[in-house]
């Protein structure tokens, strides 16, 4: 009996729990009856056996679910209908709310799609997750990636137990002949398994086969999609055609699909056997002819540390087997790192920063729209009280707010998707400056799902926040006569919502300020050269008499109108191209102290006059001159950084440096430091050689004059082709543009952060203005009494400004504190200033205070126009 009662008790409790599926009003109305019917039906079922009981439970649960779905849907339709009517009634609110939410959700969706495509998703290659790059290092001399020789690749390929496929890659510039005109093509020289390992198939034709990469293989080429489109107009018949390259006929065997190229963007691919340098017998046999980059896949189940241990074992073997190739003094070692990490390292802090900014903007939008909702709900408080008096529960009213919030957020979500789709056109070129994975960026199903979920969450937040503010409203005590009390009670919530917007705005303003200040610093930085009036052009020639060709080129260019001086250089500051050699320099005899550790230095070849044309300062000694020829002893000019490193406090003139055991040069001059690798990169050791004493086939023509690059280009090109029909001239551009372009990633980052901050400021200003308009209209009665009792409008305005000031101070304080604490992640985005830069913080604070004060002051000016007698009469 007791057992039966216990079972009944459990059943009743279970049914009571299931009743919670039904809407509150339904439950309140029918709970007792339903429980009674349930108890009676259960008793009937009990008497009819177990099968009947099971059927009873099934029917009970199914019935409850079906009724719950129907009832909830009915309420949703009613609420949505009501909300739509309200939204139509107040179109300006609806428009602003949808716009604010659309912008914020759109920004967040765009940031998410970029992060998803570049940081989260695995590499779009067959074994992307297991793809690693191998690096040989000489840590003792500061070399962190010295490349691989053919012998070393063979050793690692054959000896490794943890690597699956080993792929080699190196970059060359070749001239492609046979098209409309000679074309300089960026060429990736790869092992035959390159495309197989990446899982890339050709769009037309085929990729490489093992037979293409043998000693007697016919030279073949695979074109990249972009090059195929640009130079062959997307003609599929290009497959099978022959083109001349390096004095050999190359057959195009395939065209790649539009995939993100890895590890860099090139025009054509060729197998290693077709590369004249790589296939030379002496190069292949020389263990120290290191030029190649090596990628590999980890075997399934192998971890990164396991692979590292395995490779270190091989490195140890190489050190002992070939000590002359791996001098102990340089400390040979090998490192391994995931390719995904390598490809995303530059863009990671930028995307994290943008993601954080988008999140903050979203938070701000929610605060703003919730504040607007709350104000609107307050203006409808009479109507809400009537609804409450007619029996609508608190939950039912909150639910109608939520429905309204959801509708607004979903409409915002639709706008957000449109904006996100549009943003791809902006984000792809922006990201492409940091990673080749940028081409993967698109608004796919994940981004659409993210936008949808975010819209729902925002709808919940903006519907629920006002509900919290309304908690204390005496709706249900129906104090109709005291209409000012609900407004007062939620006034605090509104104040908090506005303070929240201010706080978020400060953080975004500081973020934008820091990136803008960084950009300003870099734009005005003395990088050690004067770019104005300088034009550069890259010249490629394979002609053996290149020295005389270059000599004639300089002579004839110098005679052109508007040209003041001309020089040649193997590369120039901030150039993304050109040859730059890294030497492990050693000096002859240190004049004092300990033998300094050998360090790497960048080596460059230049002609006399280069330094003065480019605006570099000659600090000591002399420039190169016509006497520095092949027949004369080698001379070198070093930069201040190198000189002070090796000979601190002494003159470097006359000292000797060695580029290799057989290459020694005497220092004849010292020039100022130049930021060659980027305005945000510190100067490094540099050693310049005289062009006439080197063998550089490819040079940059450096021209100082009064004519623009655009004007000079055709004339210089004519001279180049007149001197060598097969020579190629590319990238004729002003050095000022090169400098400007080098800051494009920084400029774009600052621009994006500024857009976020600008939006934040505008939204916050509208939030504050809305708050004050409402305060004035709500407190009209009180204002009327105060003015009737003698208070001047100015005094009334003053007391209301006190409240605004308190909100501004609170918001500003919280925001500034958070921005202060966020200095560590911001440190990666700033240069030349501190992440807690006091100027940025001060300017951001002042800007925000001015905007906040101005936007709150305008509604307050209405007080001056109020007539107390009219106010008191109407109230």
């Amino acid at each position, binding site marked *: 009996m007791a057992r039966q009662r216990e079972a009944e008790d459990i059943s009743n409790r279970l049914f009571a729990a299931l009743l919670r599926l039904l809407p509150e009003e339904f439950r309140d109305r029918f709970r007792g009856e339903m429980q009674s019917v349930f108890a*009676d*039906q259960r008793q009937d079922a009990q008497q009819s056996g177990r099968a009947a009981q099971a059927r009873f439970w099934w029917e009970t649960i199914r019935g409850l679910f079906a009724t719950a779905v129907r009832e909830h849907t009915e309420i949703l339709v009613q609420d949505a209908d009501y909300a739509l009517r309200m939204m139509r009634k107040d179109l300006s609110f609806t428009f602003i709310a949808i716009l604010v939410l659309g912008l914020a959700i759109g920004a967040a969706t765009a940031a998410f799609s970029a992060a998803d495509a570049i940081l989260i998703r695995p590499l779009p290659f067959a074994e992307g997750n297991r793809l690693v790059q191998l690096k040989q290092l000489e840590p003792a001399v500061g070399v962190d990636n010295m490349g691989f020789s053919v012998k070393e690749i063979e050793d690692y390929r054959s000896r490794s137990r943890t690597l699956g496929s080993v792929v080699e890659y190196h970059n060359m510039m070749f001239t492609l002949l046979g098209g409309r005109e000679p074309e300089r093509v960026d060429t990736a020289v790869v092992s035959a398994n390159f495309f197989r390992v990446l899982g890339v198939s050709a769009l037309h034709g085929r990729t490489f086969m093992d037979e293409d990469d043998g000693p007697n293989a016919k030279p073949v080429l695979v074109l990249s999609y972009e090059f195929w489109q640009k130079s062959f107009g997307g003609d599929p018949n290009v497959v099978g055609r022959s083109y001349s390259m390096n004095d050999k006929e190359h057959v195009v065997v395939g065209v790649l699909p539009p995939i993100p190229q890895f590890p860099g963007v090139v025009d054509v691919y060729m197998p290693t056997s077709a590369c004249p340098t790589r296939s030379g017998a002496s190069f292949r046999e020389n263990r120290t002819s290191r030029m190649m980059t090596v990628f590999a896949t980890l075997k399934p189940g192998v971890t990164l540390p396991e692979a590292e241990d395995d490779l270190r074992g091989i490195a140890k073997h190489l050190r002992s087997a070939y000590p002359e190739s791996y001098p102990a003094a340089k400390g040979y070692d090998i490192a391994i790192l995931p390719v995904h990490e390598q490809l995303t390292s530059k863009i990671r802090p930028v995307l994290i920063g943008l993601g954080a900014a988008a999140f903050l903007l979203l938070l701000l939008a929610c605060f703003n729209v919730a504040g607007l909702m709350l104000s609107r709900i307050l203006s409808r408080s009479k109507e809400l009280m009537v609804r409450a008096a007619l029996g609508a529960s608190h939950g039912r009213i909150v639910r109608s707010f939520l429905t309204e919030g959801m509708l607004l957020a979903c409409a915002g979500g639709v706008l957000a998707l449109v904006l996100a789709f549009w943003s791809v056109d902006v984000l792809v070129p922006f990201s492409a400056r940091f990673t080749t994975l940028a081409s993967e960026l698109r608004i796919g199903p994940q981004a659409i799902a993210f936008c949808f979920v975010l819209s729902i969450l925002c709808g919940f937040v903006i519907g629920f926040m006002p509900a919290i503010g309304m908690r204390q409203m005496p709706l249900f005590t129906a104090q109709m006569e005291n209409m000012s009390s609900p407004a007062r009670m939620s006034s605090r919530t509104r104040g908090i919502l506005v303070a929240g917007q201010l706080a978020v705005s400060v953080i975004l303003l500081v973020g934008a300020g820091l990136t803008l200040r960084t950009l300003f610093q870099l734009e005005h930085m003395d990088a050690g050269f004067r770019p104005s009036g300088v034009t550069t052009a890259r010249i490629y020639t394979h002609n053996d008499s290149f020295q005389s060709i270059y000599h004639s080129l300089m002579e004839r260019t110098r005679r052109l109108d508007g040209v003041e001086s001309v020089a040649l250089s193997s590369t120039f500051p901030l150039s993304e191209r050109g040859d730059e050699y890294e030497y492990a320099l050693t000096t002859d005899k240190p004049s004092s102290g300990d033998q300094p550790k050998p360090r790497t230095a960048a080596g460059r070849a230049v002609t006399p006059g280069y330094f003065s044309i480019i605006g570099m300062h000659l600090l000591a000694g002399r420039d190169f001159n016509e006497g520095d020829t092949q027949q004369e002893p080698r001379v070198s000019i070093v930069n201040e950084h190198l000189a002070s490193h090796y000979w601190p406090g002494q003159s470097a003139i006359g000292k000797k440096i060695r580029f290799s055991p057989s290459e020694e040069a005497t220092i004849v001059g010292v020039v100022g430091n130049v930021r060659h690798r980027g305005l945000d990169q510190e100067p490094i050791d540099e050693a310049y050689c005289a062009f006439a004493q080197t063998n550089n086939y490819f040079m940059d023509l450096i021209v100082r004059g009064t004519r623009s690059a655009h004007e000079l280009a055709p004339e210089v090109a004519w001279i180049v082709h007149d001197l060598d029909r097969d020579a190629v001239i590319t990238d004729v551009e002003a050095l000022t543009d090169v400098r400007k372009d080098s800051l494009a990633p920084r400029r774009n980052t600052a621009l994006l952060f500024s857009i976020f901050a600008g939006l934040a400021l505008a939204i916050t200003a509208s939030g504050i203005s809305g708050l004050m308009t409402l305060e004035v209209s709500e407190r009209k009665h009180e204002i009327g009494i105060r003015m009737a009792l003698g208070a001047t409008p100015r005094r009334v305005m003053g007391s209301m400004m006190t409240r605004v000031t308190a909100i501004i101070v609170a918001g500003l304080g919280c925001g500034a504190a958070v921005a202060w604490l966020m200095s560590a992640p911001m440190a990666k985005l700033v240069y030349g200033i501190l992440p807690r830069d006091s100027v940025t913080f001060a300017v951001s604070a002042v800007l925000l205070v001015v905007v906040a004060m101005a936007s709150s002051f305008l509604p307050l000016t209405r007080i001056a126009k109020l007539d107390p007698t009219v106010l008191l009469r109407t109230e």
Partner: protein
Amino acid sequence: MGKKKPIESFLPLTPAVFHVLLSLADGEKHGYVISKEIARRTNNEVRLSAGTLYGIIKRLLEDGFIEESEDRPDFSLDDERRRYYRLTKQGTALAEAEAERMERVLAMARAKRVLGPESA
């Protein structure tokens, strides 16, 4: 609101709704009796659980087809949780309209010889 809509706009009724109306045709009843009577009359073919039954009752109440009766049975027989429902005039009209609709359908079926002639 429902009262203003013509009866025809509610037709056809679902079997469950029609059976609830039928069950109340011969007098007021409370929920359990309604469900019990329907199960008995349909030989257990139509069984209404508490959730389904009160979903129907709520809609019929809102549309004005049934109403709550204030007459209560003798105190000793009453359960205070129970409420008694009865058909309104509109409810009776709705049941009639549905029955007539079904009759017309039956007549059509007979005319097409899908059903045999009506037994005497």
